[in-house]
């Protein structure tokens, strides 16, 4: 048996035994690459995700809503930071990862390329998008790669108020004036399908899934998680007295789940290709922040060097 095969078998045995892999441990190149790709995509999604919601910080309709939203968007920055740090343990720098984002080489969750058009969108994003994110993220707390799993534990702990914040906004609007209720319904109409897309392509069209499951990076399939999400959300929408924009939603006694309609995958792929309503703005905003911050970071580095020199 060649050395490489032996290492790989030992690696897989550790994973099968639910042991955590740590950064300095031996790991197959493909495992490392998959993780860097997934963790950095996840990190990018957090910081690009700050933008559509950040939009409404200055327009939040009450001071209580304003501080909640501000704290929430700040959490996304923190989550991005924890995740970049997890990726950095694998030997890439945050600079390199940013560069991949800014040049369009790296992807982020396509949901953030939709615009937030009304205050109810802040409710819908919190309720649906964070709801979907939590469903994706909770299993990642048990991911085989230690730093990613630990970052996700922290993220999930902090995330717990986000969805409640969104639900509360939706609840207040749907039980408010007719204009507010309509605002909430309109937001649900626009955000429902994109949230379902957040779970990724159907299982039979998801090429990396099987390997990721074997490595215990991924624990549940895209379709399983999506189904779980639909089941939960149908019932929550009833509490909100809002209508999910899918005429095919129906309880299926035999399956014990809700059936739902076909997702428009063409729209999904189009947005991934860069043709979403806000792709350009989102990327430009991140790039501007980074570029315009260059002189600030250089100044701090120069000052630190001067001080070190003085001290020595």
């Amino acid at each position, binding site marked *: 048996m060649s050395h490489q095969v032996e290492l790989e078998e030992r690696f897989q045995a550790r994973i099968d035994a639910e042991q955590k892999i740590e950064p300095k441990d031996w790991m197959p190149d493909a495992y490392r690459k998959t993780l860097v790709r997934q963790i950095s995509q996840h990190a990018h999604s957090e*910081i690009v995700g*700050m*933008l559509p919601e*950040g939009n409404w*910080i*200055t*327009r*939040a*309709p*009450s*001071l*209580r*809503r*304003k*501080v909640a939203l*501000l*704290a929430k*968007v*700040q959490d996304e*920055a*923190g989550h*991005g*930071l924890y995740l*970049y740090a997890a990726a950095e343990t694998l030997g890439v720098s945050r600079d390199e990862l940013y560069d991949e984002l800014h040049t369009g080489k790296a992807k982020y969750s396509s949901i953030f390329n939709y615009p937030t058009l009304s*205050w109810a969108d802040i409710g819908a994003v919190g309720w649906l998008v964070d709801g979907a994110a939590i469903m994706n993220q909770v299993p990642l707390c048990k991911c085989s790669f230690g730093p990613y799993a630990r970052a996700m534990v922290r993220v999930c702990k902090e995330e717990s108020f986000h969805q409640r914040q969104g639900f509360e*906004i939706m609840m*207040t609007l749907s039980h*408010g*004036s007719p*204009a*507010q209720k309509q605002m909430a319904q309109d937001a649900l109409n626009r955000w429902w399908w994109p949230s379902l897309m957040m779970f990724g392509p159907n299982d039979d069209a998801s090429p990396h899934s099987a390997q990721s499951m074997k490595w215990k990076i991924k624990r549940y399939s895209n379709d399983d998680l999506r189904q779980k999400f639909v089941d939960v959300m149908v019932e929550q929408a009833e509490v909100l007295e809002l209508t999910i924009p899918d005429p095919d939603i129906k309880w299926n006694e035999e399956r014990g789940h809700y059936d739902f309609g076909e997702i428009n995958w063409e729209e999904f792929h189009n947005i991934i290709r860069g043709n979403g309503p806000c792709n350009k703005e989102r990327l430009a*905003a991140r790039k*501007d*922040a*980074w570029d*315009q*911050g*260059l*002189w*600030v*970071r*250089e*100044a*701090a580095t*120069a*000052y630190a060097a*001067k001080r070190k020199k003085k001290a020595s």
Partner: protein
Amino acid sequence: MQEYLLHLADNALILGHRLSEWCGHGPALEIDMAMTNISLDLIGQARNLYAYAAELEGQGKTEDDLAYLRDVNGFRNVLLVEQPNGDFAQTIARSFFYDSYNYFYQKALCESHDKQLAAIAEKSLKEVAYHLRWSSEWAIRLGDGTEESKQKMQAAIDDLWSFRGELLTPAAYEIEAAKAGYGVNPLEIKEEVEKKLQEILLEATLDLPADGWMHSGGKTGRHSEHLGFILAEMQFLQRAYPDSTW
């Protein structure tokens, strides 16, 4: 006392609003988060003060009525805090000017004979002490960093210098507040504020601009054009959908 409380609250709210505009656009993730923390502190301070002002007014108003349903001429914040963010150096200069004043102000306000106001000041002082530390350190880093950052920081200090005067010039309601024992006359803290300012600018290797013409007006409701746009944005939903619950 109403006007005095509104002055304190408006300062905190408007600067908090400005800093919140940075959220998602900071020069590094860590700095982004720091600015948001400061913004959250300031809006929190404003909420405490509005709630108290509303309570004293006794007409069943809320913090939101005071923040969202007054027009430009009803606001009593200083002109400095409504100035645009500009580049990072301008944001730091604005914060540093405000924090170096606010720290000594809150410290003095802890001695207020009004128990509730003193309690609010005591809580705020802990936050403001951190704000001052943060903005001072950044003023020094930028001032004594690279050639480019020094030039930008000096330009920001020069640009905003003429808004400093208003901080230390008492409005009628401040004089009255100090006389009645519940508030602070900024002249009482002038010496400490200027000393701190000089000390930090010296360490930042920046030049102290000459005291020339100083703007005023914010404290009495005569604002720059900027405030109208801030309020248009901030109050939009409350104005477009009156009497709604959010």
